């Protein structure tokens, strides 16, 4: 496979091109394409190698070649007092975030770059890391990326190129599996259906692209965000179609490029209820020590929904909400932050409560409305988890225990 001439390459670019060329061979790419932007998930500290890689690129004089957003780090740089981990991690984690900025990356520190001003347009060729963001970009925005992992996402940003394979190519974006869902009558919001459908496709579809039929017309972008996040956690999903909702699936025929589905899966109401019930490790009535929201990062619209549920009485347990710094800035600017704090909300910026030490009290169960948080936190933090709707989470915070509506 030809390695392209990299003009004004510099040593850092050559270093990254070497890596990318071998990677391209390994995935069967037939060449390289130019990308418009990148999203790099390199700011979570996995050990000295995380920092050594970036420091090497800086030593070689490297700078990213395309607009590059950054995923969450290990530290909330806006509220560093929230970090409850050890000093070595604080120092290394902070340096890792700063080193990426020195390479020219934008300090967005969010797992939801699609909610920022850098959200890609339909059809854009991009190189993104972070599984939930990859799924959202492909599925909801119609941009094109593969699941780029550590080192490779940054190598693409440093060269402005991505290997031409997988979802960069039109025919590979075709739906192959039809997933028909039946929504339980008592579910009045689309949110639960989205999480249940996402979990199901993650578990059952492998790497074959599903087209989901049956999600209601009022399913929002935030609902699809939650669907993609749990699908990408529970499985290897990089893209899904939601018929009638996502841009490459206005109807079933278009989603399948005119072909018949290779497989059809039906998920009835009973199974949908079972999936949601299975996300909790504890029963109703169990005491909780925290509520965790915002995995992926809360949008301003989600904060509005939360604000409507809060009242003057501060709940017994804290409600932690992860979000991006541009959202935090807007909440501060508009004066909404004060009311949220009075309502018992702790806004966590730049990072996430399941990847780093923020929660100090892990004695009780933790309640969440995030399928992704429910999936990862027991293993990462060793906590019991209760999954519920946003309204159930707020009611449970007030009661100090899991309450169901």
């Amino acid at each position, binding site marked *: 496979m030809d390695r392209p001439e990299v003009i004004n390459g510099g040593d850092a670019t050559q270093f990254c091109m070497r890596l990318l060329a*071998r990677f391209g061979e390994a995935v069967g790419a037939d060449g390289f394409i130019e990308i418009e932007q990148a999203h790099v998930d390199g700011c979570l500290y996995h050990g000295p190698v995380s920092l050594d890689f970036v420091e090497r690129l800086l030593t070689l004089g490297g700078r990213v070649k395309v607009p590059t957003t950054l995923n969450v780090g290990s530290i909330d740089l806006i509220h560093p007092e929230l970090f409850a981990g050890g000093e070595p991690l604080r120092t290394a984690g902070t340096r890792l975030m700063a080193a990426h900025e020195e390479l020219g990356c934008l300090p967005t520190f969010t797992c939801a770059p699609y909610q920022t001003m850098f959200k890609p347009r339909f059809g854009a060729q991009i190189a993104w890391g972070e599984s939930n963001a990859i799924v959202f970009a492909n599925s909801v925005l119609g941009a094109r990326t593969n699941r780029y992992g550590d080192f490779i996402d940054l190598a693409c940003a440093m060269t402005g190129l991505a290997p031409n394979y997988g979802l960069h190519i039109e025919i590979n974006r075709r739906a192959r599996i039809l997933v028909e869902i039946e929504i339980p009558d008592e579910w009045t919001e689309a949110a639960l259906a989205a999480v249940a459908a996402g979990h199901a496709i993650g578990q059952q579809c492998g790497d074959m692209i599903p087209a989901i039929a049956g999600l209601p017309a009022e399913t929002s972008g935030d609902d699809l965000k939650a669907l993609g996040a749990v699908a990408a956690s529970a499985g290897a999903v990089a893209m899904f179609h939601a018929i009638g909702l996502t841009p490459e699936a206005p109807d079933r025929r278009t989603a399948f490029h005119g072909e018949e589905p290779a497989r059809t899966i039906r998920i009835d109401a009973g199974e949908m209820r079972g999936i949601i019930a299975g996300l909790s490790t504890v029963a109703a009535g169990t005491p909780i020590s925290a509520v965790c929201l915002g995995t992926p990062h809360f949008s301003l619209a989600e904060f509005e929904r939360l604000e409507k549920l809060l009242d003057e009485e501060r709940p017994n347990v804290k409600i932690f909400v992860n979000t991006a710094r541009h959202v935090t800035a807007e909440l501060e600017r508009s004066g909404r932050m004060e009311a949220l704090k009075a309502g018992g909300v702790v806004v966590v910026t730049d990072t996430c409560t399941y990847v780093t030490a923020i929660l100090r009290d892990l004695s009780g169960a933790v309640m969440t409305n995030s399928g992704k948080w429910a999936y990862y936190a027991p293993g990462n933090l060793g906590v019991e988890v209760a999954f519920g709707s946003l309204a159930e989470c707020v009611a449970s915070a007030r009661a100090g225990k899991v309450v169901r509506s």
Partner: protein
Amino acid sequence: MRAGRGSGSGSSVLAEAIRCGTAPSAIVMTSRDAIVMTGALVAAELYGRHCAIMLLEEADWVIGAGWRMAVVEAGEGLATIHGKNVK
């Protein structure tokens, strides 16, 4: 192992293990795995420490999986693997 599991942070985990000296000397697979390969390449570039990544046909892999010990000789492009104390 025949194949990796597809998690993007697998590259960091492998590279870190190679840096620490706790990684295996070689990883023998039946399919190309970009994540495993990336981890090994980064460790080689940064630290000059090597973990050979080998690709075998299924039939050969099955034979190798039955060995108690193996010796791997690896150069730039080609590696050979011999069984020791074969059952």
